[in-house]
């Protein structure tokens, strides 16, 4: 039991260490902010579920340095993102662009939602249409009166 716990805790250690990276800091805090923002938008291709900001893979460190240099060189965010996309493709973007190949990705969920709402609505309206609209026959009327009469009796007695 203790051993399992120790192993679990050890396994969680990397979570605590994600932001500790060894690389030259930008002196300017605005530029530093841009570096963090930009690298958080870009996927690390070595460990695909981490961004370049989180990953400590060598490639991620290199790419952070690359962004760092480009910020210093006065490139805009758009230019830096383009630099990455021309090299690694749209896959590096956590927010993929809207185009033919990503159409399903963007439109899929909303289409499914609309379809679900539409189906739900149709089911409800159909159910309503099935409720018959005809006068009560005598037996039903008597039954209804009995029930309603009971109700009113209860009210007066209380």
């Amino acid at each position, binding site marked *: 039991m203790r051993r399992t716990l120790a192993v679990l805790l050890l396994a969680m250690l990397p979570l605590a260490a994600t932001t500790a990276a060894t690389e030259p800091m930008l002196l300017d805090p605005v530029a530093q902010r841009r570096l963090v923002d930009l690298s958080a938008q870009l996927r690390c*291709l*070595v460990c*695909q579920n981490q961004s370049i900001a989180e990953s400590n893979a*060598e*490639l991620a460190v*290199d*790419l952070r340095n*690359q962004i760092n240099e480009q910020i210093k060189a006065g490139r805009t965010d758009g230019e830096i993102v383009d630099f990455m*996309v*021309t*090299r*690694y*493709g*749209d*896959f590096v973007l956590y927010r993929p662009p809207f185009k033919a190949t990503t159409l399903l990705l963007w439109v899929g969920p909303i289409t499914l939602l609309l379809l679900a709402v539409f189906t739900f609505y149709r089911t409800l309206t159909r159910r309503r249409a099935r409720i018959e609209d005809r006068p009560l026959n005598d037996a039903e009327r008597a039954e209804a009166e009995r029930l309603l009469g009971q109700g009113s009796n209860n009210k007066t007695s209380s």
Partner: protein
Amino acid sequence: MRRVLVYLLPLAIFLVVAVFLLRGLWLNPREVPSPFIDKPAPMFSLAQLAQPDAKFSPADMKGQVWLLNVWASWCVACRQEHPLLVELARQKAVPIVGLNYKDKPDAAKAWLAKFGDPYDLSVKDLDGRIGIDYGVYGVPETFVIDKNGVIRFKQIGPITEDVWKQKMLPMLEQLRKA
């Protein structure tokens, strides 16, 4: 009839989802489609591994169909791929240029001495900058570059016998005719 359809609907949805998931089992998420296919190979000029005074640039290969193989002595999968490259070099199947990626030149030379040198030449990408220009993220990677310096194919990870025979060899033959 209608009733039956309604009851079959969940099964149908399940089957569609299952097919997609099943397909997903055989997709390799590491094989990211390269944006370089049919684009000109990025230019560079790097010092050669064997002769540090001499430079190499992709422009030197104009008119030839060739392979640019990204390798490193620290890369385990490169060793797995290596015998095939050595065999290709022995058959003189295609000129192979090595991009020695983020490696120590001494370690790289020792590695080639030990396992054989299939490369016409290797160039030193010490800081991995040219690797970034080529979108390298999983060494070994191999680019097929045509006579006009256009990248036609990219293999991520080791070239296997299968990939060589099924994809690369036919492609090389076709590109040579062009």
